[in-house]
């Protein structure tokens, strides 16, 4: 019952596939070369795992937040694969994937959103899954919501780009930080497998994306006002 996961939402590309021997996962720093690299690397990974593409049971993709173009390359590939193979897919939050991969139980996940902002959310381990205690949002690093208590593990590129501002803002709430971590397909896969198991995977045409930054242009009347 092989499942394939992919993440193209940062300057990394990561893939993971379930095999009888466990999960086989790979990642590369590809900059903006996701279109060029993703499908050939999927082909190589499936070949290494001895899995025919037609044997895949489901596709998992990082549904954001992240690079807008990266999100759509991943979602477009996931949609094309799932539609072409007649299987279902699951989109997983990239912020929750950061939590999953951190090894911690209380995680402040934060990705660089460019334009001097971050995508941020806080998660607490809840059995096999995660409870989102601070809802994901896009905001200035010095205005992020502060979780209750102390010692939250800070994870993700937000801490690399705005470590000082976030450190000042979060104060004692923040413990150790893992700024080099990125949402990894291995962690998306772990979070998605229970969704497939309970029959909650989606048809490929219903694949959601989470941009968080939804105001991308001014309407004519707003421009005139400005």
């Amino acid at each position, binding site marked *: 019952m092989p499942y394939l996961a992919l993440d193209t939402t940062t300057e990394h590309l990561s893939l993971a596939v379930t095999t009888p021997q466990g999960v086989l996962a790979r990642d590369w720093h590809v900059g903006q070369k996701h279109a060029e690299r993703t499908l050939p690397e999927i082909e190589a990974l499936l070949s290494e795992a001895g899995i025919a593409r037609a044997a895949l049971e489901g596709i998992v993709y990082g549904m954001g937040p992240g690079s807008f173009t990266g999100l759509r390359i991943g979602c*477009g590939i996931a949609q094309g694969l799932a539609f072409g193979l007649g299987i279902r897919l699951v989109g997983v939050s990239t912020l929750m994937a950061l939590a999953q991969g951190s090894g911690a139980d209380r995680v402040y996940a934060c990705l660089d959103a460019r334009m001097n902002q971050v995508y941020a959310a806080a998660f607490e381990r809840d059995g096999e899954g995660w409870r989102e205690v601070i809802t994901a949002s896009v905001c200035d690093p010095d205005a992020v919501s502060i979780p209750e208590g102390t010692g939250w593990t800070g994870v993700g590129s937000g801490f690399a780009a705005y470590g000082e501002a976030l450190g000042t803002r979060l104060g004692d709430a923040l413990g150790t930080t893992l700024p080099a971590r990125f949402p990894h397909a291995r962690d998306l896969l772990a979070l998605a497998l229970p969704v497939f198991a309970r029959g909650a995977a989606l048809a490929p045409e219903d694949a959601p994306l989470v941009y968080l930054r939804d105001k*991308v242009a001014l309407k*004519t009347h707003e421009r005139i006002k400005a």
Partner: protein
Amino acid sequence: MLVLGIESSCDETGIALYHTEAGLLAHRIHTQIAMHSEYGGVVPELASRDHIRRALPLLGACLAEADKALADIDAIAYTQGPGLAGALLVGASVANALGFALQKPVVGVHHLEGHLLSPRLADPKPEFPFVALLVSGGHTQLMAVHGVGQYELLGETVDDAAGEAFDKSAKLLGLGYPGGPALSKLADTGNASRFKLPRPMLHSGDLDFSFSGLKTAVLKLVTEQSPLGDTMRADICAAFQEAIVEVLQKKCLAALKQTGMTRLVIAGGVGANRQLRAALDDAAQRHRYTVFYPPLELCTDNGAMIAYAGAMRLQHAVSGYGYGVKPRWDLASLPAA
């Protein structure tokens, strides 16, 4: 051969199934005009967000209409450029992943080649060689087309595209966005001889165009005649449309004369303009050439022309599934098919 075509280069998602023997089996277009109109122009990021929502539902509808299964598809063609990078990447990603899943060849198509060849989806279809006028919101070009991939640029606009001049003038006249079609409609009710607008580069001796001056002339008229009543507005529209149509018609005739060709092909959104068609048909009778248009619903961006052009270029299909888009891409650089 059944070819799937996917177009996502700007603000229309187009999907089509074309069969090399049976012809066009199904095509669907979703236009984003209403979404962008609030912004007064195409917002690239919003265009991309919409393409990814539309592509698969449109594909499902095409398969149902053609009564075909995915497994019947022999090859997949997608618009690789030119166009908006983010928008192009949506179609490219879906196309290549579908090809990978179905283990079928995928071919990247030049958007303008799609338009150029689209009149060959009509009956009767133009045989090669022909002169093509490619006229839309993004392009105004005259080309000598000797065969698939054998394109010789004869002339082009040095500033605004004809469709762009329509839309910008419509904006000046308070007709909203994109106002080109509204301007044409209003022009039908106006008196074209009340105002005389310039015919830029009509006697330039070459096959190039310029339309930005015409827009400036409209601005001047609007300023002078303000506030505009309905009749005044209609008369300006009529004068504007007459000027553009005359320039396009005269340059087409000059291109036919220069090349010695007898077939003229019109492609692109402005090709749907009724007065332009009437003027070209009229000149065709007098000057003994034949003029060909794409089917009316294939004048705007669509998947059918991409599927058709892809079918002509299957020998360039790749099987590696690593892909990239070409937001800028010179048509003349294409190899002959």
